[in-house]
């Protein structure tokens, strides 16, 4: 499969990037690691006239400690750098755990923090070649007007399939987004729409530039567990992130988020309330698992059955909560 024809542009600064995005809005895609974009372009899911390579923008790479106010991660920081960062491992372990599970070592060398946050939603009926999609009559996310996963429905249920955003949700991370009118900061929980097709709140002329991990979220015990068939390469079929702070043997604060089973990564409703002030034991962990399973809405977007993925959300949540409490 060939790449569609496009013109490759380079930006040296964030400002330059935003200018190009504004100029070619709707006809341009951003390239950072390229691990998601390139295969999708070969499948003709995107046929942009322009591709903007942002890898030369030095200002948005790397991990920086902000004394007293947390850590800043540039959008171009590779997942390998996240995985091996000493400060993140020590202070925000849920993020390094999640980053270490993404795809394979080679892909983590290319894939970036920003790219993982912006990762396109995935579905077995969508991530296919043009010929394949044509044969199945296309779908609502691309070129079509029907959904194969929820027939008759008008909503797209493609699953959000990145690992790190579940961890970032647990950490109350904030995203810096730069547009023509300057930079804005949004909590990551506001970044996703919950729709499979129009899945993120990022204007065509905007660029995700930085991630901030607040000081208040530091030093939580963190665990990320991921369902996949192979020990490497695979996207998550279900993912659970848990961050727990303990005090005198009891849970002082906790956050639980799941990914890959809904069109967005989501916090598990009621988990925090159920955990705070309690001694975490198997029964409580199981209850959190039930809450997570209720939050999960897996459909037939993958080869595994939805019921199995929901059940694994339950099991993995229970295990993660226990592991976080005992670590």
């Amino acid at each position, binding site marked *: 499969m060939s790449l569609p024809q496009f013109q490759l542009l380079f930006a040296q600064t964030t400002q330059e990037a935003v200018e190009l995005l504004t100029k070619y809005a709707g006809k341009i895609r951003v390239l950072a690691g390229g691990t998601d974009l390139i295969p999708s372009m070969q499948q003709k899911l995107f046929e942009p006239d322009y591709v903007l390579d942002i890898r030369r923008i030095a200002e948005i790479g790397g991990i920086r400690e902000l004394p007293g106010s947390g850590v800043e991660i540039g959008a171009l920081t590779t997942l390998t750098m996240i995985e091996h960062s000493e400060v993140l491992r020590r202070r925000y372990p849920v993020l390094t755990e999640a980053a270490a599970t993404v795809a394979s070592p080679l892909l983590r060398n290319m894939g970036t923090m920003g790219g993982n946050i912006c990762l396109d939603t995935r579905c077995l009926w969508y991530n296919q070649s043009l010929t*394949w999609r044509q*044969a199945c*009559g296309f779908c609502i996310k691309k070129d079509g007007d029907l959904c194969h996963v929820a027939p008759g429905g008008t909503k797209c249920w493609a699953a959000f399939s990145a690992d790190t955003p579940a961890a970032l949700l647990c950490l109350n991370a904030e995203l810096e987004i730069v547009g023509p009118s300057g930079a804005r900061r949004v909590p990551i929980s506001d970044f996703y729409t919950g729709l499979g097709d129009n899945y993120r709140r990022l204007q065509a002329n905007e660029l995700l530039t930085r991630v901030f991990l607040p000081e208040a979220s530091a030093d939580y015990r963190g665990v990320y567990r991921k369902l996949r*068939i192979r020990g490497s390469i695979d996207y998550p079929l279900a993912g659970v992130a848990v961050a727990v702070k303990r005090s005198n043997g009891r849970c002082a604060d906790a956050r639980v988020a799941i990914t890959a089973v809904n069109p967005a990564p989501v916090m598990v409703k009621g988990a925090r309330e159920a955990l705070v002030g309690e001694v975490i034991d198997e029964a409580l962990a199981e209850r959190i698992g039930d809450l997570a399973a209720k939050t999960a809405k897996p459909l037939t977007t993958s*080869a595994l*059955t939805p019921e199995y993925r929901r059940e694994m959300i339950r099991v993995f949540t229970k295990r993660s909560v226990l592991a976080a409490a005992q670590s």
Partner: protein
Amino acid sequence: MPNDFSIIGKPMAMVDAAEKTTGGGKYADDLSLPGMLVGKILHSPYPHARIKRMDTSRAEKLNGVVAVATGQDAPNPYGILPVGHDEHALAVDKVRYVGDNVACVAAIDEATAEKALRLMEVDYEVLPAYFDPEESMKAQADLIHDNKPNNLEKDYHHVFGDPEKGFAEADHIAEGRFIANEVTHAAMEPHSTLAAFDIDSQSGKPARLTVWSSTQVPYYLQHKLSLVLDMPMAQIRVIKPLVGGGFGGKSEVIPLEIISAITARKARRPVKITYTREEVFWAHRGRPRTIIDLKTGITNQGHITAVKARVIQDGGAYCSYGVVTILYSGALLGALYDIAHIQYDGYRVLTNKPACGAMRGHGTVNVRFAFESQLDELAAKIGMDAVEVRRRNLLKPPTITVNGLRVQSYGLPECIEKVAEASGWKARKGHLPRGRGLGLACSHYVSGAANSIIRSDMPHSTVNIKIDRDGGVVVYTGAAEIGQGSDTMTAQIAAEVLGCSLGRVKIFAADTDLTPIDIGSYSSRVTFMAGNATLRAAQEVKKQIASAAARKMNCSPEDLVFRDDSVRKRDAHLETAVLGGASQPGSGASVAGRVEGQILRGSLQQKRKDEAPKDSMSFEEAVVAAIDFHGALSGTGSYAPPLEARGGKHKGAGVGPSPAYSYSAQAAEVSVDEETGEVAVHKVWAAHDCGRALNPVSVEGQIIGSVWMGMGQALSEEMVWKDGMLMNPGLLEYRSPSSVESPEVEPIIVESVDPEGPFGAKECSEGSLAATIPAIANAIYDAVGIRLHESPFTPERVLAALRTKKAQKKINLTEGIDPTAPAGFREHGGALWFRGKGPKRHPLDPSRREVHEAARGDD
């Protein structure tokens, strides 16, 4: 002195290892010719449809497009089996699966060719389609092929011995349905073919055709090209460059191989087609999903009294190797254990899916999974250990089985003992911690089919050897190196016989203009058959050298020993060894100036000086003497399986017989996560009887590779279908194991030294695979007490079985199919058609608007 070999039996790097590992080697897709075009194939979007109208004019007019080929350009049907000529390289009237080949565009580059595909206009009349083999067998109308009633490609009904009597003698009978889902080869190299015509100097028309292709069977390809293109075989040259794995997926003629030639002829320029991974999945020819209804009887003493198997294979839309596959499934119920009564009913069924064909362990793997699982069920019933029950059913070779298979060398007993010992079976079986288990299973396979698919008296392999005055040994063999080590094996055998170093041997292989005919690399036949042909060719040359050298040494040819690049009198051998010095064995192929002078200038003076009788000659001296004496020095050898090994007389008896069988026993250690259903394979002990290991490191590689591939089919590999759409046509969603979950494999080589194999060698590439799947299934049973009757053992299936066993709350983990007692195949849970199942599309189906959109896009 059976082990006194100088070349064979020692671990050797493959002769092509350096070029492959440094990236210098050329595979088909690396090749390029001046003026070469890129071919792209238009595939059918429908599982079953009649082509009503095709308009290629808009595609042809696109700038950069040179030719568009359709079925009318080469309408002759073909197929790998003489009884199965049911394919067209490009459809002439009907398409029969999503992905079937409709037309081909040749353009200056890939992007232009892909763009042209969007401009092709094809009107289809959509026909009812068949996806499930048991449904398909009921078809009365809209048949997939008009001459195949009930969409039945072929059925066989064999009865050997007296099965009813056998079951009556049994103390216990087990009966059950097993399902093995569909898997494919997933070779690293996607298929690729470059085709080029010479232009005839007199007429200016396309004349001779040369095809470079990723094939396991160059001579079959030459034959089918001749058939479809209406050209004499002598006008067609097929060259096999390096091939990046076959596993059966390149063991027949794949559509692109013919399409590239058709298109090149039309375009009058070389055309190369390389499949995308998705196209590889559509070309397929993999292992069919299979239903096995199996019944086995056993006595309380552990003797198998009778076996009855009813096998249904979902063969896809074309015959391919299907008739052979369904016969192998029945035939290889024999030749592993001593079973007196066998009944077999096999059905090869057509469906509107990509064609299945030959895949590593051809036809035997799925039935072996069922058999070895059921044997363990029976052993449990009579309270007998899995090792013991297998010991009690061994053959007593030499023998001919009830279904006519001749068994001579039989290393199975040793395989079982070695595996039991290495795995600590006796001490550990049943004593592992909860959730962890050990399982055992056995398997076997042919060392080449005793009967060629084209019934004739033709030798299956022929090898020519030529040696010139430089002392270089040039071997011409039709055997196709596909990564399995065929060239290395050939070089080793030639070098061993001639007593020369490996570096002296040059291999020319698989080029139909240069090399003598060999039927190809499939059914694990190359070492046995091409190896025997090489052995014979080398012996013929050796005889000529020996007679000339003997004259020089004043002795009889029988007194000569060929070894370490020299020819010595038998008793002189020791003296030289004692004397040591430059003529020490192993000093290699160095050509001393004196000898060089003699070879090149033929110095008479020198010659006379050397003419006095002596005890030893260098290999070059002996060669020169032989050429001076005989003229050209060349030899030829061929191999045809002996008549006694060619099987019985019943219908279908041609498939299954082999000159020799390999044997395998394996133990697998697994653990099962009872909450998630995830299975981890920790270690596999795999003993394989390969007759003699010509290259032990290569044998070990094949054993490990077979176990790994079997583990893929056991745990994670599965082609997922929805109404004829393959849901996972890529290596991301079709999950071959990664290095992370690959277990330690301990290969154990067993050498039974076959009386007819070259130096006693048999096959080692396929026989091990079939044991891995039931070994893992039996280990899962040992670990958590569930007996899975459906492969692969994905976590959802394992968990569903576990929850049923524990009587936990029902959740629909496997969409209604119980993996411990599956009734039929499961389809993917999504919805392909907007209004339920069936061939009618939604009126607003955007694919109907595609033509107009493409038109707009082009403006």
